[in-house]
Each structure stands twice: as structure tokens, then as C-alpha cells.
């Protein structure tokens, strides 16, 4: 468990200390869910979101603790405070879910996403793409005479910004991992 770096916050069975709810403001939250690594568990989580009409902006999942059979799902979602609280409570209710953490409210957190981006072009556009990649600290992971594949890591906003710049320079394809996030500190 120690390898998971999940800060122990409010218990998933606790509904106390609820923040002011029933406001109409749409908030964006990053939620980390520790689940039993068993068949169908992702379907349970996704089914909850589709069945109850919640949004998923991004979702990543992978096993993080092989001996403990635990996977970590990181979900970025938007909703009113009431909906966000419901999402967390509903996630906590799934039998295969061990822990639910709202990284947006539990403290400062680090969010990273990885994208690989294919840019096709020649001449000045190709040079400009390389120059911008350097500024954004994107790496070239593949190159042909008329194309690059860049690898870039950062917040979703940084990746959006880079992708927007690459579009006029010949962006043809982009693959993103979705957000992975951890709370800061020990």
C-alpha cells in the first residue's frame, strides 16, 4: 500500500464535513479511486457515470499494486458541488472500490498527462514546429523526412496549448493518456 502514495483523508464511508452543496457552479474535480483489480470493475465505474448521467472528461486506469490486486482509476469530472459529492458517495458504494479521494479538495496535487502528437509538414513549418516543441519541452520520438511525432507531458492545459499551436503547422493525429494525479507532500 505504501507504494501507492494515497494520502489518508476522510473515510469513504463518511458523509460529514460536506462542503457547501446545492450551488449551480460547475466545478472540475480530479478523483482517484482505488479498486480491486478484477474483471468488470472498470465497467462498474463507467456504468455508474453513464447510468446516473455524470460527465467523464478523462479517465485513466492501471494496476498499481500487483500483490494487493489494486488498480487506480483517475477520473476528471465536472458537475455542481452536489453532483460531485454524489459521484464520490456513489463510487464509494461500489463493493469493489476500496478508497475514493477527491484530489481537488484534499490538498494541493500534481496532475500530469502524456500526449503523442503527429505533425506533418515541410520547410519553414517543420522548423517552426521543432522550435515550439523545444519551448514546450516536447521530445521528438519519431521522425521521417516530412513528419515528426512529439511526446509531451504536462497538465491537460499545457497539452491543449501545444496542440493548438501545432494545428496550423500540420497536426494530423493526437493520442492522449488522460490525467494521472497524486496529492503533494508525504
Amino acid at each position, binding site marked *: 500500500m505504501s507504494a501507492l502514495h494515497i494520502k489518508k483523508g476522510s473515510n469513504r464511508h463518511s458523509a*460529514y464535513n460536506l462542503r457547501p452543496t446545492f450551488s449551480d457552479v460547475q466545478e472540475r474535480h480530479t478523483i482517484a479511486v482505488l479498486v480491486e483489480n478484477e474483471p468488470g470493475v472498470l465497467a462498474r465505474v463507467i456504468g455508474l457515470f453513464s447510468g446516473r448521467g455524470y460527465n467523464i472528461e478523462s479517465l485513466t486506469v492501471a494496476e498499481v499494486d500487483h500483490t494487493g490486486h489494486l488498480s487506480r482509476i483517475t477520473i476528471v469530472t465536472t458537475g455542481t458541488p452536489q453532483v460531485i*459529492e454524489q459521484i464520490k458517495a456513489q463510487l464509494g458504494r461500489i463493493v469493489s472500490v476500496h478508497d475514493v479521494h477527491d484530489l481537488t479538495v484534499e490538498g494541493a496535487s500534481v496532475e500530469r498527462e502524456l500526449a503523442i502528437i503527429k505533425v506533418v509538414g515541410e520547410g519553414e513549418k517543420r522548423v517552426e514546429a521543432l522550435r515550439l516543441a523545444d519551448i514546450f519541452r516536447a521530445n521528438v520520438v519519431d521522425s521521417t523526412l516530412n513528419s515528426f511525432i512529439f511526446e509531451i507531458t504536462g497538465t491537460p492545459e499545457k497539452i491543449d496549448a501545444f496542440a493548438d499551436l501545432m494545428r496550423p503547422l500540420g497536426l494530423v493525429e493526437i493520442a492522449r493518456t488522460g490525467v494521472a494525479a497524486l496529492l503533494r507532500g508525504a
Partner: protein
Amino acid sequence: MTREMTGAKMVVQALKDQGVDTVFGYPGGAVLPIYDEIFLQNDIRHILVRHEQGAVHAAEGYARSTGKPGVALVTSGPGATNAVTGLTDALMDSIPIVVLTGQVPTFMIGSDAFQEADTVGITRPCTKHNWLVKDTNSLAATLHEAFHVATAGRPGPVLIDIPKDVQFATGTYTGPKPSTSHYQPAVKGDLDAITELVAAIETAKKPVFYTGGGVINSGPAASQLLRELVDATGFPITSTLMGLGAYPASGKNWIGMLGMHGLYEANMAMHDCDLMINVGARFDDRITGRIDAFSPKSKKAHIDIDPSSINKVIRVDIPIVGDVAHVLEDVLKVWKARGRKTNTEAVAKWQAQISDWRKVNCLAYTNSEKSIKPQYALQRLEALTKDRDRYVCTEVGQHQMWAAQFLGFEDPNRWMTSGGLGTMGYGFPASIGVQMAHPDALVINVAGEASWLMNMQEMGTAVQYRLPVKQFILNNERLGMVRQWQELLHGERYSHSWSEALPDFVKLAEAFGAKGIICSDPADLDDAIMEMINYDGPVIFDCLVEKHENCFPMIPSGKAHNEMLLGEAETQGVIDSKGSVLV
């Protein structure tokens, strides 16, 4: 205790070790090994239903009337898909049931094999949890875990899908042991929140207890503690459809069921109260009416074992997550320790106000000497059966609401009705489950003829096992509640809400080898009901009632608690366009 045995034998062994005495089921290709094991033993009774939906509802009836998990066993494919309605019903009403389904052998899964269905996929959203067991060695642990999950925390239905090769293969059986599952919902409530509730109880001027199915699910201790708290504080108490019987209908603080067809005094008390103590209810839309006009002046406390119930619909001031019995015990302890205080004077005034509302006599109806009014039929049924060891099931519709209004329940687990899902066809198979659990009791299913026909095949089950269930059908030859809504909302255009081809229920009963009774004259009603009660065997009672009676009081869709319709008032145009999109 570990032993080598086949998966099929493990299923039967695990059921025995979990204390199961009755299984409702229907055999098929993918569960034949399990049926073989059932054949070879005598500890578990198997009740052969006539449709898998009936098996699940019967298991629900068994569970609701005993507090123990009900068990159903069905085959793969259509057996499993037929179980879906029962599973969803149990999920909505938080009923602990364990459903075992057969599956095609593991090596054929995904090949569109005969009677193959993605059972865990189909039932994922309608179970609390489900499992596909692919290895016989993990079968025993999964079976025991299933009983733990079904009953721990907020109860619910679980399903185990067992491929046929897993049933044939041999593995190691382990007996039940204290659960090592991480799934251990907290049962004790937070003491700070409980103290806050007690402080509110001490000062409240217009308090009301609003209780629900959670009290019943928590067990008999919860009902006892609730009665003690209610009677010690002298606060009025209302209940949802699901919670009837937790507090006795004859109790001095009982103000009747609340909600869409609840009593005037109960809904007015909810609207005007200054402290609402929700005990194991979930602010269902049948209860709240218009949300923004729901009990606007009250402080609200909510005791619920499921954190997701808190603030889901109605924002509450004092959330207490925990098991009703545990929380009420602590509430009583703290309240007594602080000197058993209430604002007696104000509460007496409040009770007087409620008595005034009661004088409205909201259940009044115009009786008739020519035809049997459904309300009258239920009043007579109540009078003639209330002193017996009685269990009541219902189907869904007008008759269900009238039964809730006109029958009184003195104890929990005596009232089985489909609340959340509103499943027509629930009551008859449920009554079979109840009668199996309570062989000597009087089990009555109050039904409408339309609902009853949805699972009428279970007459075969009732007759085969000599289950003396009484099917009390209020026959108005209409889908009464649909008809009522069409009258109120759709300009009296009665689109497809009646049947022109109803069976002769007496002949139907006789065809099944049961007794049929028909009654259409109010003067004959008492004798006919007594004949039904005294007959030793299943009875279909065809009670021909007034065809156009509406169920009142009623909170129209989109209206608040204090905007109830009482009796045959002017009912046209009471639901505006915004309300008419609601169900």
C-alpha cells in the same frame, strides 16, 4: 473445514452453511449439476416456480418477511434475463437476496453458445454486486462473500454466475468464516452529529419522525428502539410505504403514511414541521413532491447507512451515516443522559394542530350499497383479519395505495410491497415466498386484476406446494392508476387502460386446482372474505369493485405537500404542463 468436492456440491453445501432452508428456482441445462445435488439431499427445500421472475420475487417475499436473505436459482440465458426485473426490484427496495445463475462452460463463454447471455454484464447495474466464478477453487469463498455483501450495510441483491464446467469440476470447499472482505460498512453513527440531533429534539416545537424501509431492514431491534424513542418524546411519526409496521398503526403518535397518496395530516405535518427526523428513508420523489417547496421551514436530520443517500435529493442539516438500530440506541442514550428533555408545551400544541388536520378525514369516500367500493373491501378485509397472524403482499397500483391506507400494521416484516420499482406482478410470487417462510400464517396478496395476471402462472406453484395464499383481487377491469392519471392528465382519453378479455377468475382457480370466490355485492362481502380465510388452500378472490373509483388523497405531480387533492374535488387542470412530464 476444508473438503474436496464438486462445484455443484459446494453450492448446496455453502447454502446449508449459510443457514438457507428454502431455494426458489427453475432448472435448465446450465444448472443441472446443482439440481442433481439438490436431488440428493433433504436439508434445503427447493420450490419450483413457473417463471424465473417469480423465483426472485418469492425470494424477496421470503427475505422481507424474515429478515434473512432469500435465495433463487435459475439457469443461464433466458433464466438469467427473466430474473432481471426481480433483481432491480430488490435493488430499489434494498432487499437482501442471493441469485445463483448457471452459465455456459467457461470455454464456450463469448461464443454465442446456446442459452448464453452476458449475465454479469446485464445484471451489473441491477445488483449490489455480482460475480462470474471461473475457478471451482474460488467458488466457496465467493458464495460466502455473496451472503456477506447481500446483508452488510444497505442490503441488496447479489448474483453469482456459475459456468457449468465449474459446477462439474472438483475443488476445495471452505466453510464460512468471519468476513475478511474489505467491504465493511460502518454501522455506528458519528457521536457529534447524534448529539446535534438530540439538541434539536430537545428544543423542537413542531417535530416529526419520517421513517422508512431502513428501519425494517435494520432488524426488529430498530423498530423497538424507534417505538421507545417516539413514545418517550411524544413526537408524531409518519412513514413511507416501505416502512409501514416499524411503528404500530395503533400507536398513539402514528399519523399515517405520507407521500403522493399519503394522509393529509402526515403530509401537512411534513410541510409545516420545524424538525424532520428522517430514519432510514431516502426522500423518494413519491414522498417529496415538489422539491423546492418541500418542508421549507424545517431543520432536517437524516439517518441512513448509505452515504450516497445523504444530500442526494434534499439537503439535510444533520447527516448521520449508520445503521438505524445503532444510531437510535445512541440517540436514546445521549437524550436520556442529557435529561430526557423536550419542549412539551409546544409539542402538545403541535399534536393538537395535527389532530385538527386529522379531522379533515382525508380517507373519506362515498360508500355504496349497490357496488363494492375498493376502500370498503379493504376496510372489511382489515376488520376480519387484523387479529390474525397476518402477512400482506400487494401488487402495484391503486389497490396498493388503498391497502397502505386502509390496512394497519402493528409489526415490521408484515407488509411486502414493491415500492421503488413499482413492479406489477410482484405480489403473487412474493406471497408464495412469505407463505413458505411462515407456513401457518394467513398470507394475503391484495392485488389488482391487471397486476395479478402478470405472474398468474405461479398458481401452479401455490397449488403444487399446497400454499394457502389468498389472492384478494380488487377487480375493476381497469389499469386503475393509469386510468386515474389519464382522467386527471390526459383529458379522459383512456388509452389502452382496460381489458376486454379478462378471465373468469373462479374457473381459472378451478383449472389450477384451487378455490375461486367471486363477490360483487357489498352485503355478501364479509361472508365471502370469511370463506376465503377459512379455506385451507390457495384462493383466488375475485372482488368486483366500483370501476371508476379514484385514489385520494393525492399530491399531483409537481405540487407541494400542502397542495393535496382530497376526494372527488374538481380534478381537471390541477396538474400543469411542468407537472405532467413527471411520472
